[in-house]
Each structure stands twice: as structure tokens, then as C-alpha cells.
């Protein structure tokens, strides 16, 4: 019987999803929050980056549902923990080659002694165990098969897209009380409110790419294999969760402290303000990388001295990831705290807050009812803006060995191990390229998205353009 397992980060991920859902429900009814969001979705860049991000999020969420496939078995295997993503990509995960093989290759990347049927040995590139194993004659059939599989993948993608598009148009036409054809025409000519056409094109591109990759991955290693023969595409997909976690959990961890302290400093002023300012100036004056390095070093010592506390390597790596998020949060909350303090300082002088004070409303109620709702946009902008920087920081930190656990799949770890591959002759470029490409796409989408969000929520900027 499969048994669900909840890692600490999984719980926080689902907490985050719940929070986002609550926020959406909350924002729907409040025009000052929902109007900017409508602006975000009415920009073409905004909606296409959201769709790209959505694909990442789905992969990340699938990778956050962990289970033990065989909980009753008591042997070593039962410790192994899988996620839904592992399940969906079982072929990629299990089809392990011997060592390096190039993207879509049918043969290994290094020569080996191969024993011939007649007893002699020759030195050649051996066939892969799985990649292109269905071909009888790889030399002649290869390009035809590759073409055929690509076309199949593209067609599957288009079919899925068509189904999704029809459902979307049907829902829209029901909502707008229009006939299906009218709605379709509006979308084709460019909807004035929400650019559904752009959204559909982006969706088409993503679905075709995904379906093609998936179809090809059934027969080949699309992005090659690494030193121990693991599929690089699988690794890159698994790394998505780590990247997303670092980008989101860090802000989730720091938010309570930043919001509470920032508003308290600005609202109460006096010695509370002095104390909080002193705290964040002190923390801020420690160089971020060094603080992280020091904290991670200390955690390594703690973990090596308390090995018994961690049931498995996975849990240990998970704790390290969570700790990294926390320490990144410690180094990054000061900026938001300072912004919120300034805003709260300004708000607490406004007439309606003064009036509430005069009426004898308690501090707690004033903060909750009058200050907090008016700083939500600052929090939102900061969260979205910080995301891409954190994803990039993860790679750098992992390179310095103060990032995630070496056993965790992450783009930083992939790049780190790829450094030695670049020095090989001939070079092994696919691991590095794959990780950089996946990271680039995520960060680019996040950057474009955050630009749109900032423009929509920051009235000061809006008036200028």
C-alpha cells in the first residue's frame, strides 16, 4: 500500500497554496486589490509569463506530493520516497545508462571494449541500454524515427491544446452570454479586456514543447545522461521544485517578521522604532553571503553531531533546504521591513488613523484594519520582485557549497558538477545547458511578471508612463 509522506517543505508548500487561495478570495471582493490584478492579466507579457510560470508551479507541486510506494515492506527499498512527478516520469527515472550520453543519442559518449559474438573485442561506442533501444538499425533508422516521434509529440500537444482551447472558449461564452462562434471571433480578433489570443499561443507553445519532450523521452534521453547515467531532463525537472521553494518559502518565512516589525516600528515610533531599526541595521550590515555561510557551517556541525535526529537522508536534505530558506529570509527581510516602516510612519499620520485613535480604537485594531490593508501592495511587489533573485542566488550558493544539500536535485548542483565536465575533451555541455536553460526560463518569466505586477500596483510608476 502506498503511504503518503509529508516532508516539512511539503507542508509549507501546501500552506503557501492555501494562503494564495485565501488571498485570491480576499482580493476578489476588494477593488483596490483586484483591479491591479486585472491590469496584470490584461497585459500580453503578464498573461504569457503567468502561463509559463504555471507550468513550473504544476511540476513543482507534483513534486511536492511524496509517498512511499510500499510501506509494508521492511527492506531497504521501503525507505525510498517518491513523488507524483517521479511516478509520472518513471521511465526517465529508472532508465539509467552507464555514463555520459549526448542528447538523443543511441550510443554512449565514451568508447568501451565490446565483446563481439565471435569472441573478439573491439573498441567502440556501445549501444545505450534504453536510449533508442527500440531501433534495430540505429544508423539508418535514427533520423526517420526521430522525425516520426517528434511529429507524434507535436500532434499530441496540438490535440491537448485544442481540447483546452475549446473548453476555455466554451466557458467564456457561457460567462459572457454569447454564442460559441461569437466568442471565438472576439478572441481571434484580440479581446480588448484580456488578451486570450496571446494566452492561447503561449499555451500552444508550452504544450507542444512539453508533449514533444515527453514523447521523445519515452524512447530517448532527450537531454542526454550525466556521469552516472541519470537522465538530465529528469534532473532538470526535479530541480524545479527546489528553485520554486527557495524563491517562495524564503519570502513566506520572512513575511511575518518583516510585516509585524515594520508596521510596529512605523506605528509606535519611539523606543520600539529605535530597537527595531537597530535590529535590522545590525543584521543588514553583515554581508549576506557570509551570514549564510556562517549559518550553514554551524548547521552542518549540528547535523553531523545529531545524525540520529534525521530518519533518512531525504529528510535531512529537506531540513537543510528549509534551513537555507530561513537563513535567506533572515538576510532578506530587512529591505521589506524598512519599506513597511516608512509606509506605516506615513499612514499613522493620516486623518482617518488619527480619527480612529481619537475615538479610542485599540492599537491592534487600527493596525489590522487601517494600516495592514494599505501596505498589502508593498508586500506583494516585494515578494514578486525577490523571487527571481532568490532563484539565481540558489545556484551561486550551491556552487560555493553553502546552498542546498549535494544530494538534492537543484540547478546549482547541476551547474556545480558540470564545471568539471566543461574541462573534458570532448566537452559534456548538455547538463550545464539544460540547467541554465530551465533556470533562465523561470527567471525570465518571473522578471517579466514582476515588472507587470509592479507597474500595476505602484501608482507612482503608473502616472509616469
Amino acid at each position, binding site marked *: 500500500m502506498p503511504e503518503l509522506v509529508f516532508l516539512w517543505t511539503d507542508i509549507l508548500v501546501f500552506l503557501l497554496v492555501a494562503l494564495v487561495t485565501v488571498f485570491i478570495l480576499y482580493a476578489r471582493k476588494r477593488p483596490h486589490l483586484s483591479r491591479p490584478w486585472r491590469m496584470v492579466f490584461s497585459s500580453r507579457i503578464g498573461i504569457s509569463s503567468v502561463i509559463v510560470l504555471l507550468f513550473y508551479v504544476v511540476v513543482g507541486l507534483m513534486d511536492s506530493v511524496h509517498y512511499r510506494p510500499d510501506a509494508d515492506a521492511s527492506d531497504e527499498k521501503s525507505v525510498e520516497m517518491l513523488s507524483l512527478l517521479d511516478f509520472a516520469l518513471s521511465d526517465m527515472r529508472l532508465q539509467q545508462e552507464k555514463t555520459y550520453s549526448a542528447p538523443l543519442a543511441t550510443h554512449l559518449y565514451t568508447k568501451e571494449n565490446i565483446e563481439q559474438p565471435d569472441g573478439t573485442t573491439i573498441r567502440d561506442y556501445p549501444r545505450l541500454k534504453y536510449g533508442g533501444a527500440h531501433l534495430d538499425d540505429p544508423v539508418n533508422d535514427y533520423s526517420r524515427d526521430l522525425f516520426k516521434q517528434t511529429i507524434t509529440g507535436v500532434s499530441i500537444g496540438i490535440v491537448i491544446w485544442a481540447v483546452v482551447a475549446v473548453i476555455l472558449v466554451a466557458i467564456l461564452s457561457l460567462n459572457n452570454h454569447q454564442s460559441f462562434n461569437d466568442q471565438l471571433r472576439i478572441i481571434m480578433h484580440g479581446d480588448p479586456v484580456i488578451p486570450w489570443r496571446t494566452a492561447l499561443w503561449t499555451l500552444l507553445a508550452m504544450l507542444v514543447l512539453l508533449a514533444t519532450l515527453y514523447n521523445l523521452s519515452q524512447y530517448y534521453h532527450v537531454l542526454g545522461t550525466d556521469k552516472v547515467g541519470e537522465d538530465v531532463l529528469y534532473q532538470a525537472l526535479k530541480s524545479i521544485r527546489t528553485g520554486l521553494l527557495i524563491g517562495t518559502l524564503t519570502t513566506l518565512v520572512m513575511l511575518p517578521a518583516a510585516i509585524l516589525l515594520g508596521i510596529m516600528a512605523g506605528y509606535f515610533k519611539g523606543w520600539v522604532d529605535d530597537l527595531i531599526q537597530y535590529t535590522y541595521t545590525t543584521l543588514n550590515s*553583515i554581508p549576506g553571503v557570509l551570514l549564510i555561510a*556562517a549559518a550553514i*557551517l*554551524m548547521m552542518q556541525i*549540528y547535523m553531523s553531531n545529531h545524525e540520529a535526529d534525521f530518519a533518512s537522508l531525504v529528510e535531512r536534505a529537506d531540513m537543510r533546504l528549509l534551513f537555507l530558506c530561513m537563513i535567506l529570509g533572515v538576510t532578506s527581510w530587512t529591505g521589506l521591513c524598512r519599506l513597511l516602516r516608512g509606509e506605516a510612519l506615513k499612514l499613522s499620520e493620516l486623518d482617518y488613523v488619527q480619527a480612529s485613535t481619537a475615538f479610542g480604537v485599540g492599537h491592534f485594531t487600527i493596525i489590522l484594519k487601517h494600516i495592514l490593508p494599505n501596505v498589502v501592495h508593498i508586500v506583494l511587489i516585494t515578494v514578486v520582485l525577490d523571487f*527571481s533573485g532568490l532563484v539565481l542566488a540558489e545556484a551561486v550558493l550551491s556552487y560555493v557549497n553553502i546552498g542546498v544539500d549535494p544530494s538534492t536535485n537543484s540547478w546549482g548542483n547541476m551547474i556545480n558538477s558540470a564545471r568539471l565536465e566543461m574541462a573534458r575533451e570532448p566537452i559534456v555541455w548538455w547538463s550545464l545547458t539544460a540547467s541554465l536553460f530551465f533556470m*533562465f526560463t523561470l527567471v*525570465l518569466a518571473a522578471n517579466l511578471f514582476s515588472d507587470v505586477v509592479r507597474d500595476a500596483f505602484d501608482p507612482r510608476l503608473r502616472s509616469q508612463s
Partner: protein
Amino acid sequence: MIAYIIRRLLYAIPILLGVNIFTFSLFFVVNSPDDMARMHLGDKHVTPEAIESWKADRGYEKPLLVNAGQQGMARFTDTIFFQKSVNLFIFNFGQSDSGRDILYDISQRMWPSLAIAIPVLLVGLLVNITFALLIAFFRATYIDIWGVVLCVIMMSISGLFYIIGGQFVASKLLHLVPISGYETGFAAIKFLILPVIIGVIGGIGAGTRWYRTLFLEEINKDYVRTARAKGLAEQIILFRHVFKNALIPILTGVVVILPLLFMGSLITESFFGIPGLGSYTIDAINNQDFAIVRAMVFLGSVLYITGLILTDISYTFVDPRVRLS
């Protein structure tokens, strides 16, 4: 003015004390020196004697805060906190695990760091301001839109890519410069040129976009409208009025990072094998040399606070409206 500077310097003392207490608790309270010794010695050599001698070598055998075995002031001075943390205030960093004087190492290694950081800063400023002015001049045209798109794309590429790609193209394919290494004197140029170029390219995206925002902010102000109304040419408006006023935030933004240039860049230096403070820190992290990490944390904080004070002072020079009191 002088009174202000003195006040700021005095205000720095509690902050540095806070940094010290924070690092002290991080290094010695969260994990006892025994834990560190055990980690350092590895699983095989852990005997109580080995731990004691490891601690004695580094002066970690003393009590943390109060030494009950001593009399008078020595009760407080003969402790880890006083020896290891308070001594940082007089820049007495002590010795590293390999027995070298940390202050001497830092004074030697800051020069290669500066040799990279200063050219990167200056060339980067020049390049970014040029691009930003160009984009601001052609604002709201396709040059502007595509320029910003290019900036966002360049921002989204990991810094590691610039370094690995640059090393691969310039050193491995074209054999223009050595991949890594360092020499003293003018021979260092061939080792420095690639990291400097990569550093500049890596900063173009974020820098240009930021400066563009600053320029556009100025362009929308009233005095620019006046200048335009009296018939000045767009170039003159841009260079004589907008540029000068936008320099204020640019300059003060540069001043705040000036002192931190000493710290060097962790990634660049370790990739290019340059013996600066950045690679010094990375080596210390990898060797788990706590004395060095502690010293660098303190040094970094000092430099950061210096940067903040310098920024405030520089405001009075570039903007006569600002008076410090």
C-alpha cells in the same frame, strides 16, 4: 558636519557590538567548541584528548563569558567572548587554522580583489550610463522597448553562465587569455582582463535598467518641461539638465558600495583563481576555518557601515539642498 560624523561613528559602535554578539552566539553558543572540534577532527580521531588539544590550539578552551577561575578583570577578559570577539574591534583577528596571521593575509589579498572590483565598477558605470542615456534619448520608441527587453533577458541569465561561457569562449576556444591564475605586477593584466569584461557584461542588464528609470524620473520633472518650453535641443536637455541631476542618486548608490569593493567577489575570484579576499573567504568556508569567517563577517560589517556614513556625507557634496545636522 564634523559633529554629525562623530555622532554617526559613535552610533556605529552599538551596531558593531550587535554584529559581534550575533556572530559570537552563532559560532560558540549554538554549537559548543566541542562540537566544532568533533566535526573538524572527523569521526576517526575523536578522543577527549584530541578535542582538548584542538581547542587549546585555537584558544577555545576558555569559558564562554565569565571565567570563574580568574580574579578581577581577568574574570571577563580571559574568556572566549573577550579574546575572540572583542579583539576584533582593534582589528586583532588572530590566527587562522593554518597558523597564519589573518590581518596580514587580508592586507595582502585585498589588492587583487581591488584590481578586479575597481575596473569592473568604473567600466561598468561608463557602459551602463551610456546605454541608459541612449535608451532614455530614444524613449517610447522601438529602441527603448527592445533595449529594456534585452536588459531583462540579460538580468535573467545566471552570473555563473557569464563566467563559464566567457571562460569557454575566450580561453578554451580562442586561446586569448589563460583560464585562471594570477601574477603580481603588470603581468596580472592578462589574468584580469577576462574577469573584468565578464563582470561588466554581467552587470549591464540590471544597471542599465536601473539608470534608465532614474533618467526617466528626471525627464518627467517640471524643470525639464521648462527647458523644453524655452526651446532647448533634446541633447542639451538630456546632457546638461537630466544627466547632472540623475547623477545624484547614481553617485550616492556607488558610494555605498565603495568600501565593500575590498571584499572582492566570491564567485569571480574562485572561478578565475585570483588570490583575493573573495576566494580567501570561499577557501575558509570550504575548510571550515571559523576564525577567518568571523574576521570577514566583522570586516564586512565595518565596511558596510563606513559605506552608509560616506553616502550621507556625499549627499552634502553633490546636493547643496541637503544639510546634515
